[in-house]
């Protein structure tokens, strides 16, 4: 909920007298490494993709190397099993497998003698009616910048969850954009994709904006929601915790079957 973010901004503003930031040293006890499995299947070609990596110590720099040697399959309720091949280190794909809305999919990963599984049902596709940009009307950032808006018509007869992924000139925006239809069931919705007011990510005239709209299931929504609220390092979260995951077997990550649609515009 955006309320809290606004109040946090105000809170910091309230204390404009200092609100001093300082990088500090914290001694963190290292933990055993865990596998991180990110799996997805979409209604698009090349949508079946599984990325396997590992946790690393906080102090370590840089890369999160992929984990090779896993046996990865996606199966559906009709009993078809599709093996995914490792195309790069830690990346497993099947470029022909296209998912169908309404179908239930199961991810199965065998790695170093352990098994990890997850199930996800691909929701029906909700069409993206429009993608457009509008000047950021709020004065939070006090700058001229644009926000992308996605228009869609929420079906009144279903519980829907959405995730939007925004790219500016090919660079992915880090903000997690998710929505449910708690308060918008059955409505024509215009969803602004509000991103934080950092100088270097402002959308300006001439930028090419790409937005993918994903119709996700509840488990995926829960995952992204709890990741955003508790696992991205935000100091205001009372009890940071690992996100709620549909993955069984002790790995971090998620498996999401979603209907996807992508559009692109250039900011006038």
């Amino acid at each position, binding site marked *: 909920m955006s*309320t*809290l973010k*606004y*109040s946090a901004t*105000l*809170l*910091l*503003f*309230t*204390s404009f*007298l*200092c*609100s*001093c*930031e*300082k*990088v*500090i*040293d*914290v001694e*963190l*006890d290292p*933990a055993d490494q*865990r596998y*991180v499995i*990110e799996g997805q299947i979409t209604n698009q070609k090349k949508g079946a993709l599984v990325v396997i*990596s590992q946790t*690393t*110590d*906080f102090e370590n*720099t*840089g890369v999160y190397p992929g984990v090779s040697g896993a046996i990865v399959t996606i199966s559906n309720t009709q009993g078809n099993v599709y093996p995914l091949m490792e195309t790069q280190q830690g990346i497993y794909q099947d470029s022909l497998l296209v998912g169908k809305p309404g179908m239930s999919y199961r991810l199965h990963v065998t790695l170093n003698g352990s098994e990890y599984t997850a199930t996800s049902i691909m929701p029906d596709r909700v069409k993206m009616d429009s993608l457009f940009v509008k000047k950021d009307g*709020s*004065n939070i950032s006090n700058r001229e910048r644009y926000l992308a*808006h996605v228009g869609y018509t929420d079906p009144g007869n279903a519980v829907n969850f959405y995730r939007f992924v925004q790219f500016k000139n090919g660079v992915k925006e*880090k903000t997690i954009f998710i929505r449910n239809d708690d*308060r*918008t*069931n*059955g*409505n*024509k919705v*215009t969803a602004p994709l*509000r991103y934080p007011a950092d100088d270097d990510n402002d959308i300006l005239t001439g930028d090419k904006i790409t937005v993918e709209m994903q119709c996700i299931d509840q488990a995926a929504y829960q995952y992204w*929601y*709890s990741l955003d*609220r508790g696992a*991205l*390092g*935000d*100091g205001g*979260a*009372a*009890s*940071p*915790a*690992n*996100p*709620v995951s549909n993955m069984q077997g002790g790995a*971090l990550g998620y498996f999401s079957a979603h209907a996807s649609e992508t559009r692109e515009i250039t900011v006038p």
Partner: protein
Amino acid sequence: MIRFIKLTLCLLLLAAGGSLAQQKQATIAGTVKDAATGETLIGATVSVKQLPATGTVTNEYGFYSLSLPPGAYTLIYSLVGFSEKALEILLVSDQKLDIALSDQATTLNEVVITANKNDKVSSTQMGAEKLNITEISTVPVLFGERDPLKVLQLLPGIKSSGDGGSGFYVRGGATDQNLILLDEAPVYNASHLLGFFSTFNADAIKDMTVYKGGMPAQYGGRLSSVLDIKMNEGNNRDYEVSGGIGLISAKLNVEGPIQKDKSSFLLSARRTYADVFLRASSEYRDYRLYFYDLNAKLNFSLGEKDRLYVSGYFGKDDMGMGETFGLQWGNATATVRWNHIFNRKLFSNTSLIFSNYDYNVAIQNGGNQFDIFSQIRDYNLKQEFQWFPNNKNTVRFGVNAIHHTITPGEVTPTGSSSINASELQKRFAWENALFASNSWQVSSRLNLTYGLRINAFSAVGEGDFYTVTSAGMVIDTLHYDKGQVAKTYLNLEPRLSASYQLGELASVKASYVRNVQNLHLISNSTASNPTDKWIASNNNIKPEISDQVSLGYYRNLVENQYELSTEIYYKTMQNQIDYRNGANIFSNFDAIETQLLFGKGRAYGSEWQLKKKSGKLTGWISYTLSKTERKIDGINSNLWYNARQDRTHDVALVGIYQLNNKWTLSANWVYYTGNAITFPAGKYQVDGQTAYYYTKRNGYRMPDYHRLDLGATMKLSDRKNLKQELAFSLYNAYGRENTYMIEFRDSESIPGRTEAVQTALFKFIPSISYNFKF
């Protein structure tokens, strides 16, 4: 009910039994008042020179009753800050004796405090701290805004929730486990400006007592403490205007007689004006940021035996940014009280209390504009009797009925919007209690107070109630009609305490208390937030229960100049609430219990205070060593973990020095172990961005907190009736950057690295304010 009547009878018989054994007695009763203003005085001691073991203390309305065998006595009336008054009487039959005590300090801000007999050593109550208004006004505080709640946090066992927060932790309890009463009305959110100030305007406050343990039976409803705040009644002799202008706020207080010596009024108001400065700046001109509050009180003497008080509080905060975002919140309370003296031995008070807390969030995001409104509202009736059967017993008994209405959230679209109007179900509950207690002077040294509170909490319709599995799934929904009881919890809360005098100078005390809490605050942020949610017990959410034993030793030193007190406590807590990982407590969802987990808690510690009570230099050192843990299934692998408010060491040093008639200097220094906090054990990548991996809940500590504040008050020369002063303060004098929060993020300077970043709120904050009184 029948059990309660029986119990009351037993109690009364026991008390009466005590009196049967004695000879015929006569009763002296009356009211103790301030000679200058006519304000009744709470907690004044009435002692008998000839019978050192006999005595009483005035109640919260200044009333006392003392029964003695006929004879000649010298009665001594005393209270901190007032000159002692001795009165020779020849007691033959019952008599009424109203007393007026003169203020020692007739000036605006006198601070020389003399030792008084009514101290921790001789009082029979344990676990209680009383704050004196003089102390409140001299201790330096943030922005020079005198704040009783901030001063309270300098006492042992009471811990500040952090920089700028007016929430506080008592003996390991959470911030919602404090019952905060303003003229008997519960205040649900005692903070202004997200906790930087409290809702209590020092000018309007007469008396403030906090109970950390051994709570008397007339109080109930929260686990950890009771903070009982009484407002001034208003001067019934003369008109008085006082006020102050500070850097960020101004205040005004007007009081005076309506009819001299019979009735009076008080009106106290304050408002911050930081928003005026904001409007002047081009960058922040659309920001709104202010609060105001009003305290008002009327009181009438209706003849010899009756007195009527009407008091109210109203406060509002408003912050926002143009039309993008707005948040308003506030408390409103109203209390009507009627004191009736049936006879010299029986005092009655009837209170009708209203209490309301609400907030409204206005959001405009893209084309969507909507308001979210939430509210908790109480109607409350309290009838209490105080019976003074003889000089050995004081009996209190009564009944309390509260009706709660909680509006968890109403969403109203405003303007054009794709948001639907929606409303979470309103929740209704009855919270009824019967209580009785007797304070029994067993011998000249031993005093026993025993009592019982019976608490019945009923969640009632209209509404849907859910059957929820341990995994948080709703498997059944039952609808209850209006007024139909869905679930009732009956709890007995025994209250026991004993005090034993070890000679003139020392005493030991022990107590056991059980408390029950049926309203719970759910918060998912580290800072206290006005939008934190109050929820009531229901079929899934059980009452929180705490059992506390405590033991104390008190001693006066160096001819009563110093007072040493130490208490140890052990407390267990049942049905503690936390939310599930990834819980969305702000979702548009009625069954909030699906997002919650339940478990238990324990807290123990020892508290020390050495207080210098008289002389030019006064103040105290307090130290608390404590531990607070929780164990909740589903969190931290079901193992015990440190509660957020767990702090090992907590130190406060307060000094007030009267330099001369013109200058008073003050300083306080606090130090405490950082709060328990969860840090990551590692990191990984999700969809191209860094996420953190967690293993242990609250396994780490924030950096230690320490801070020095300095203050000075300069009295300006008096002009006729005008008294004025300038108060200077320097908050955080040595500029310690205390950690407000710690964030983990990708380094901007070194790609691929992650770093921990701490945010501090305050460095030095100097302030100056001007106060006057005429």
